[in-house]
């Protein structure tokens, strides 16, 4: 029985690993191929099956005038929009979450939990519902097709995540901690940033991670709200596709787009495995 169990366990783990990793390996391998090796016969191993070339990668930084696709600018646009929106969302979201966790709000039948739900309900709605209002809103204030406009929209999308995670986190920080800080002589603001906030760093990291991931991978709003002036990375990558699919540069650009997320995942994973999170959540 236990042997069968072990066999099944390893079988499924192996299966799942292949399932997850294979597309990556495929992308890595394809990014070094040229037109010939992609379109002739099925090849896998560089130097044996095909002659590797860096052409797929080179076009990414070449300007369109020289036959390249230049994803450098969209790349930095994406970094700027994601980081700015995440940072603002975390700051505002944390303040909102602290208030929701520590004070009691009443307005008619609305209570703290309803307000928290109201925040997260923004994410429950299908994005398509929000697209027309956002479009009209941005065109009214003249921010359509601009980085600032995207930052505004992304804050609306990311702040609910920050609020939601941080409310839950602050609720687990005993209120005696704030009270002790008050007794020790802090005013409420000092109690927040000297005592509660340093204790909430793990929560901030998790919230930050989610904001960065959701900001970075968004294609829908970046696609709808920008045209020619600015382009974000996901839109640019999709736009690479043409009548003849350039699999090599498409693979290379896909790899460079997931790279930041892999780095974020590694940092957070290190932090998680150090036990810093679990200790703070007790």
């Amino acid at each position: 029985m236990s042997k069968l169990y072990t066999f099944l366990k390893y079988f499924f783990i192996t299966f799942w690993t292949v399932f997850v990793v294979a597309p990556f390996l495929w992308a890595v391998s394809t990014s070094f191929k040229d037109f010939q090796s992609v379109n002739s016969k099925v090849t896998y191993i560089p130097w044996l099956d095909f002659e590797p070339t860096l052409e797929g990668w080179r076009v990414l930084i070449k300007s369109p005038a020289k036959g390249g696709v230049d994803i450098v600018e969209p790349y930095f646009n994406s970094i700027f929009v994601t980081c700015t929106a995440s940072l603002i969302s975390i700051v505002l979201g944390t303040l909102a979450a602290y208030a929701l966790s520590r004070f009691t709000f009443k307005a008619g039948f609305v209570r703290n939990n309803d307000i928290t739900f109201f925040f997260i309900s923004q994410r429950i709605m299908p994005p398509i519902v929000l697209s027309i209002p956002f479009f009209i809103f941005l065109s009214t204030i003249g921010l359509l097709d601009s980085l600032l406009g995207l930052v505004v929209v992304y804050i609306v999308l990311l702040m609910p995540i920050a609020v939601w995670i941080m409310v839950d986190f602050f609720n687990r920080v005993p209120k005696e901690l704030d009270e002790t800080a008050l007794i020790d002589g802090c005013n409420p603001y000092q109690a927040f940033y000297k005592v509660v906030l340093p204790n909430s760093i793990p929560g901030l990291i998790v919230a930050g991670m989610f904001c960065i991931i959701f900001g970075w991978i968004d294609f829908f709003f970046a696609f709808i709200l920008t045209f020619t002036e600015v382009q974000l990375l996901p839109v640019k990558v999709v736009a690479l596709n043409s009548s003849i699919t350039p699999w090599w540069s498409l693979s290379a650009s896909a790899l460079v787009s997931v790279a930041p997320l892999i780095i974020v995942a590694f940092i957070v994973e290190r932090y998680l495995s150090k036990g810093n999170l679990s200790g703070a959540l007790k």
Partner: protein
Amino acid sequence: MEEQMAKIDLSNISHTYNPIDPKPTYALNPFSMTWENGKRYAILGPSGCGKTTMLNIVSGLVRPSKGEILFDETPVTDLKTEDRNIAQVFQFPVIYNTMTVYDNLAFPLRCREFTKEKIEERVKAVSDTLNLSSFLNSPARKLTADQKQLISLGRGLVREDVAAVLMDEPLTVIDPDLKFRLRRNLKEINEQYKTTLVYVTHDQNEAMTFAENIIVMDQGEIVQVGLPKDLFEKPKTTFVGYFIGSPAMNIFHSTVSSDHEVKINDTTIKTNSNLGNLKDKNVKLGIRSEFIELAEKEKSNTVKIKLTRVEDFGNFKLLTGKMGDLVIKSKVEREKPIPDGELNLYFPPEKCCVYSDEKLV
């Protein structure tokens, strides 16, 4: 920055947590009390009787629905917690996880802008008292639960000039041996620095050994304030009689038969209480099991009981007997021979307390 410790007056304080309710339930019923400078007080009572609410009102975490708080005759009711100069220790350790032990202890002083030398001196003194000196540079979150509670306690004691140190069952998580030592330390600190200490507990032994004055509370009401001896010998209500002492006070339904006598199941018991205006009324007679004596033969103020159980506690024996359907408990010396079956118990009149409507006559 040097402030004097204060006399704390609680004047007509009452508190409810649902003030908009037309018929609010009160966590604290109106009361007035004075905490003298430099004394040790224990607030004793079952869970949910309003002890913690009282502390939070004094420290300013809760604003009382009615009444006023004065520190040295100065009203502080509207003063914020951080401006009150009170130290409070909670039941469970509250530490600043991200700081070292030293920084935890120094935090209250830093917030109040003490000089570096003063901070160093005070932290050293407190950490010595609490046996924390060897951990000063470790991160506070790495310590065990009782060490963490020592840090909380240390943060309460590190300021010499506080109006009072309020402690809400602070020794719950600490092991018995250390508990005993810490209680003695707290007493010493109080004697040395003349800091007013207020100690909330539901453990009567803790209260009795620690405090000069005990405040007994029940259901938001202050039932009795007094010395441990008074609480033990002359409980003002049957609740105090039940709550204080182990076993609880013996309390019997009885009827007043004359100016100084009550009847329990046809046995007349003489007391020192003046019962003139309660004649023929139903009252309760209370007597501590410690004060009931074994009598060799029937005489006045003895009751005859049927022995049902003898428990040996090592230093004393606890006899449980029945008179009709009444259960009587008596503590006797261990060496005393206990006759089998029926025996006579003597109720010394000066130790008998008579309660009418649950209150001492």
